[in-house]
C-alpha cells in the first residue's frame, strides 16, 4: 500500500457520487412533492395501528406499492393504480415492503372496507378463506362469556364459533383495523405528480 491516499480519495469519491445519485437527488426531487390533495394525515388511532402493523411484521409479507399496468396486473387484481410519491407523504418511514407473499395493501381500505370483515379475518384468516396462509392474530382478541357494553363482537362463521363464548376485539385490533381502512389511495393522481410511467415506450396500450 504505497499509494493509499489516491485510493482512499477515489473510494470516497465513488461513495459520494453514489450518495448524491441515490440519496440526495431523489430527496431533492421527492422532498418537494406536496401531499396528494385526497390524502388525509393519520389519526392517533390509525398511527397506533400503524405501529402495530410494523411490530407484527405485516410488512414482511405485504407490500404497499401497486405497480403500473405494464409491470404487473395490480390494477386488475383490485390493488389500485400505481402509487406515486405523494401517496406516502405522511408515511415516515414508509412501509412499502419488498415481498408479496400476501396481497398489496396500499388500497385495502377501498377494497375491503368492512371493519367487521377485517376483524374476523385478523382473528382467523381461515374462517374467511380456507386456503389462506396468513397467520392468525388471536392475541389481539379476547374470548369472553358475554360481551360488555361498548365491546366490538367479532362475527364468525358457524363452524368457527366457540360454544357459549364471544370473541371481542381488543383496542389493539381496532387500532390495526382503523389503520388498514385508512389505506385508501384511490383519489386521482394530480397532473403534476412524480409518477412511474413503467417500462412502456409505445404506451400502456399495445
Amino acid at each position, binding site marked *: 500500500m504505497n499509494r493509499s491516499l489516491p485510493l482512499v480519495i477515489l473510494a470516497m469519491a465513488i461513495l459520494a457520487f453514489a450518495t448524491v445519485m441515490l440519496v440526495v437527488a431523489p430527496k431533492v426531487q421527492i422532498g418537494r412533492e406536496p401531499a396528494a390533495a385526497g390524502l388525509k394525515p393519520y389519526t392517533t388511532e390509525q398511527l397506533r395501528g400503524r405501529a402495530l402493523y410494523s411490530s407484527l411484521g405485516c410488512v414482511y409479507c405485504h407490500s404497499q406499492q401497486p405497480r403500473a399496468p405494464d409491470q404487473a396486473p395490480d390494477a386488475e387484481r*383490485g390493488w389500485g393504480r400505481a402509487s406515486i410519491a405523494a401517496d406516502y407523504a405522511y408515511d415516515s418511514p414508509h412501509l412499502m415492503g419488498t415481498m408479496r407473499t400476501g396481497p398489496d395493501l396500499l388500497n385495502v381500505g377501498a377494497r*375491503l372496507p368492512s371493519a367487521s370483515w377485517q376483524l374476523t379475518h385478523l382473528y382467523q384468516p381461515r374462517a374467511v378463506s380456507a386456503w389462506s396462509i396468513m397467520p392468525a392474530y388471536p392475541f389481539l382478541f379476547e374470548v369472553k362469556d358475554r360481551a360488555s357494553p361498548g365491546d366490538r363482537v367479532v362475527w364468525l362463521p358457524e363452524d368457527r364459533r366457540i360454544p357459549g363464548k364471544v370473541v371481542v376485539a381488543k383496542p389493539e385490533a381496532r387500532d390495526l383495523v382503523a389503520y388498514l381502512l385508512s389505506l385508501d389511495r384511490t383519489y386521482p393522481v394530480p*397532473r403534476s405528480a412524480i409518477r412511474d410511467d413503467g417500462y412502456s415506450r409505445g404506451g400502456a396500450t399495445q
Partner: protein
Amino acid sequence: MTTDRESVDEAFEPYEPKRRVPLPVYWVAIALALWGALTLLRDSSADRTGAKQRIAEATTLERRQTATGSALFAERCATCHQADGTGVDGAIPPLAGSPFVGASPGVIVQILLHGIEGPISVNGSDFDGHMPAFGSVLDDDQLARLATSVRGTWGPGGSISPGFVATERARTAQRTSPWHGGDEIATTLDRTIGVQPAYLPAPRSPDDLTAQSIASIGKAGGWSCASCHGSHGEGRDGVPRLAGLSPDYIARQLLAFTDGSRPNDIMRPVAQQLTAADRVALGRLFASLATPSSSHPALEGDVARGAELALQGDDRRNLPSCFSCHGPSGFGVSPNIPSIAAQRPSYTAGRLAALARLTSRQPGSIMPAIAGRLSDADRRAVADYLATLPPSPATSSKDAR
C-alpha cells in the same frame, strides 16, 4: 549450492513491469459506456413518451367533453332512440313529435338528469321501460349541448345554456329516484304534456324490511352488505356496484355463492346465512336503488378502443361485442346476464382476468373463453369505457305492479 544461495537477493520485492492495457479491454469498456449512455437516453425518452401518452389521454377525454350535441346523441342515445329519433315500437318511445321534447326546456333536462322509470304515453302509444339517468356521467355543459341538439332536431328548437342545466340540477338535487313515469313529469314539471298513465308503486312486502336491515347492519352480527358495497350499493374499488342490477340476478348470485357454484371467499360465509326469502328480498332492494354512478376510468385504458369492443366487438380476435349479450348500453338481460354499466373499472378488469383463468371449466358459460381472448390492454380499455356509462336504471319490480 552456497554460491547460489548468496546470489539470491533477500530484499527483493516482486513487482509487475509496466505493461500496456490490452486493446480489447478498452473496447469492452467503451462498449459498456456506450451501452450505459444509450440505456439512459432510452429511459429518458420513455419518460417523455409517458408524458406524451398522458397528454394524448387528456385530449381524448377533452374531446369527449367538448363533443357536439349530435355527437353526444349518437354516442349516448341513438342505441335506443335510434339515430333518426323514431324509437322502437312498443319498447322505446320516439323523440320525433314527442310532447316531452316539445314541452318546456326544463322537462328534457330533468329527464336527462334523473331518467324515467314507469309508464309513459307518447304519440298515442304506451311504453313501460327505464330511461337511465345521465346526471352522474355528463356535466352541465354536455347536458346543455345534448338537450339543445335534441330539441333543435325534434322539438321547438332554441338554446339551453349550461347555467340553466345547473339551476335545474340544483332544483332537484335532493331527488334519489328516477321520475316515476310520465304522470309525475306531467303533473310536477309541465302540464302541457297532457294526460299520462298512472304510476303504481310496487307493494312493500314485510321481507323488504328484513332486507333493509341485512343490507345496513348485517344478519345475526354478520358483515353487512353496506360495509363493503356502500350504503347505496354504489360499490368501491374492487367491490362491485349492486344498485340497479336485476333482482333475479342478485338472488341467483347469492344462491351461487352459497352452494359454491360461484366461488367467492368473502361472499360465501355471509351468503350461507341467508334464506331463500332473504335472497329474493335483497335482490329487490338493490335493484330498486337509483344510485348515481361514482365510477370513472382509472386503469389508463384506451376508452375509444373500449367503446369499439363494447359496441362492435373485434372480428379479427373473435370477440363479440359486450352489448350483443349484455343488452343495449350494458344494462344486462335478466336473470342470467348482469348489468355491466357503471361498474368500477378495477372490478370489471379483475373479473375479466379471473374469468380468463377459469378457461372452460364451466360448461355452458361463454365468458371465460371471451375473457381469455382479451389482451390485458383490452381488458383495461373495456373496463374504463364501461365506467363512463350511465348506471342501469333502478327497477321497482315491474312484475309486482
